[in-house]
């Protein structure tokens, strides 16, 4: 999608020009004059720490990091945080609006139940708050059993009704009467990991091919560049459609998940490859590379021990920026009905239900998964941007 190309281009673009930005000459003021020799923390700090110091200055990036961390925590502890499992539903609560949490200082939290009626003519559902129905809530209440991390059996939920059979719809009910909040929490897992796994795959492909292309140059470079060019000139939607539709029959949700991720990675690797290649091209002629070669280091050693670390922070920045692109791609695929499918729960799958006028006009809270996508993508983008700014701590 448009974001993918545009988003990561910046990293490539920075390596234009013969005067590479790695030179820490005296020309750039603070960096040049200050970060020279001297046994202070600046010069003795590892590059990783320097990047971190620099990163911390970027307030939005720090905020993004916090949000990202939280979202991944939610993904990790989804079973605990979600009040209900993915299959729990209440037929009375289809399209139920979100409940308000009331606080009673004597007895704690509670919500009111609904009485719902359906208009036989228009099929409009209407929900009346039933003041008499008071559903006590609690923290770390007993609820559905699950296995934490797939290992530890437990039945406590961060928040939930004291009686697990009572309805609690903090973010409203879905089309089928499931609790949207629980679904969003469970969906975090798939949505957040699809980015990670996909990027990991794209990373391997991109780094290997981009590295080979940039390091060896010449014909190898030419061939790989044609390949990259070729992948980029194909509109990605038909690629998705074709590949997604070609998934072998009878695949379960897990296999489908990995297949979709692979498809996303196949499309995403080109950007990374371009970044890596650009870096390699500019580094190839650096003295430390020549020096390492003269020292008798083997080529792979030169690539992996000397060249890769010198721009690993750039890579991390690029990678961070491609995760949100992947998340968006997953939602788009799901929108087209080609991604994951119910009963799998991901934000994209949840959004599939929200893509219609009915939801916009009568159940807008079903758009909440979209908000989650936006917040997460925003956070990840900020992190990536901050990392990119910080990637070269000597620069300023």
């Amino acid at each position, binding site marked *: 999608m448009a974001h993918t190309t545009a988003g990561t281009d910046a990293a490539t673009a920075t390596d234009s020009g013969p005067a590479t930005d790695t030179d820490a000459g005296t*020309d750039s003021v*603070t960096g040049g004059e200050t970060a020279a020799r001297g046994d202070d*923390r600046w010069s003795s700090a590892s590059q990783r720490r320097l990047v971190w110091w620099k990163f911390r200055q970027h307030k939005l990036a720090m905020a993004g990091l916090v949000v990202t961390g939280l979202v991944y925590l939610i993904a990790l502890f989804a079973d605990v945080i979600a009040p209900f499992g993915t299959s729990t539903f209440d037929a009375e609560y289809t399209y139920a609006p979100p409940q308000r949490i009331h606080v009673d200082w004597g007895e704690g939290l509670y919500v009111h139940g609904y009485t719902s009626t359906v208009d036989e003519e228009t099929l409009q559902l209407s929900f009346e708050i039933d003041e008499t129905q008071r559903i006590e809530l609690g923290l770390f209440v007993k609820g559905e059993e699950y296995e934490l991390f797939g290992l530890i059996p437990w039945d406590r939920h961060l928040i939930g009704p004291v009686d697990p059979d009572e309805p609690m719809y903090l973010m409203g009910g879905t089309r089928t009467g499931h609790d949207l909040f629980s679904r969003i929490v469970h969906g975090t897992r798939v949505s957040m990991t699809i980015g990670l796994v996909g990027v990991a795959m794209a990373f391997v492909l991109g780094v290997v091919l981009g590295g080979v292309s940039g390091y060896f140059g010449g014909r190898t470079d030419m061939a790989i560049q044609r390949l990259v060019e070729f992948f980029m000139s194909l509109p990605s939607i038909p690629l998705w459609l074709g590949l997604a539709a070609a998934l072998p029959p009878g695949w379960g949700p897990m296999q489908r998940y990995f297949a979709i991720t692979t498809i996303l990675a196949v499309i995403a690797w080109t950007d990374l490859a371009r970044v890596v290649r650009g870096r390699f091209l500019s580094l190839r002629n650096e003295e430390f590379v020549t020096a390492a070669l003269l020292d008798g280091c083997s080529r792979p050693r030169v690539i992996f021990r000397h060249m890769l670390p010198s721009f690993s922070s750039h890579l991390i920045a690029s990678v961070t920026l491609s995760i949100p692109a992947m998340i968006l791609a997953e939602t788009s695929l799901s929108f087209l009905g080609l991604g994951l499918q119910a009963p799998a729960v991901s934000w994209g799958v949840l959004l599939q239900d929200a893509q219609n006028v009915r939801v916009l006009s009568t159940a807008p809270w079903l758009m909440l998964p979209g908000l989650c996508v936006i917040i997460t993508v925003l956070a990840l983008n900020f992190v990536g941007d901050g990392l990119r700014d910080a990637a070269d701590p000597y620069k300023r």
Partner: protein
Amino acid sequence: MSHDEPLLAIDGLKTHFFTREGTVRAVDGVSLTVPRGKTVCVVGESGCGKSVTARSVLGLVDEPGRIIDGRIAWQPGAGEPVDLTTLDPKGERMRRIRGGEISMVFQEPMASLSPMYTIGDQLIETIRLHLPLGKEEARDRAVEQLRRVGIPRPEERLDAYSFQLSGGMCQRVMIAIALAADPALLIADEPTTALDVTTQARIIDLLRDLQAETGMSVLFITHDLGVVAEIADEVVVMYLGTVVERGGVDEIFHDPKHPYTNALLGSIPRMGAGAGRRLATIRGNVPHPSDRPAGCPFHPRCDAAIGGVCDVSDPPHIVFGEARSVRCVLHDDGAAVGGDFRVDGERA
């Protein structure tokens, strides 16, 4: 050269960088003067604040750096000197001074020229910025300038790009640009560092010839004492944002007063000196300006440091004459001062 006022007088200049990690006192009370028609060399290790000093003159200090104190008196002709620190760095007066009255040549000639435009474009631009010339006249002058800095076939070279030229050629072009508007002062910030040795020598020769020809002053910044010996009239030795010693080139080379100067000189390989002799090195590294040691900044590396004195109180500024001074407690001794003073006085 009708009057004795120095062309440029820097007095108590403090340029600090306000970073999130703390204040970096890159230049911390530097005073120096550039007499008319003379070449003043600023020497010191990397990170001692020489470049920042030079840039402060032209108001070229980038964020988060700021000149927080001091005066830079600029007096190109008769009349009141201008304090450059009071000028708006983005204002018109400063713009006219840059390139018009004071020019600067940088360390990396290749990177100092935009690769997107021909060198002619950049040269003519400078000429037209400062001199009231038409396009054709400016072009003629540009060719003249290139010829003057020793570039063969200047008419053709005008249409070349920086990346098509060698480093030495680029530096010549930079010098041509710098001198295009006949400035009164040329600041050369390590102009030869990035060049190979033979090219270095030629550029130095060129600068010397040009100075002789135009009578301009040169503020030459370098860490290379060999270059200093070759072109300097006066020498300023800097350490960690302060001037530790000033003096005529011979005085500095033959009678260094500051232990740091001494040590610097000791680290130069000398012709004829015993081949097997080890070069002296200075103990330790230059500390980061934000971690400036208390007392004399050099004391942790100084062999002659006096415990309880050097690491406690700032060293005194001992003036031996108009152009000769040192910052060291070792010279705060009456006899030593007197003796040296006399010698210097005679020389001045």
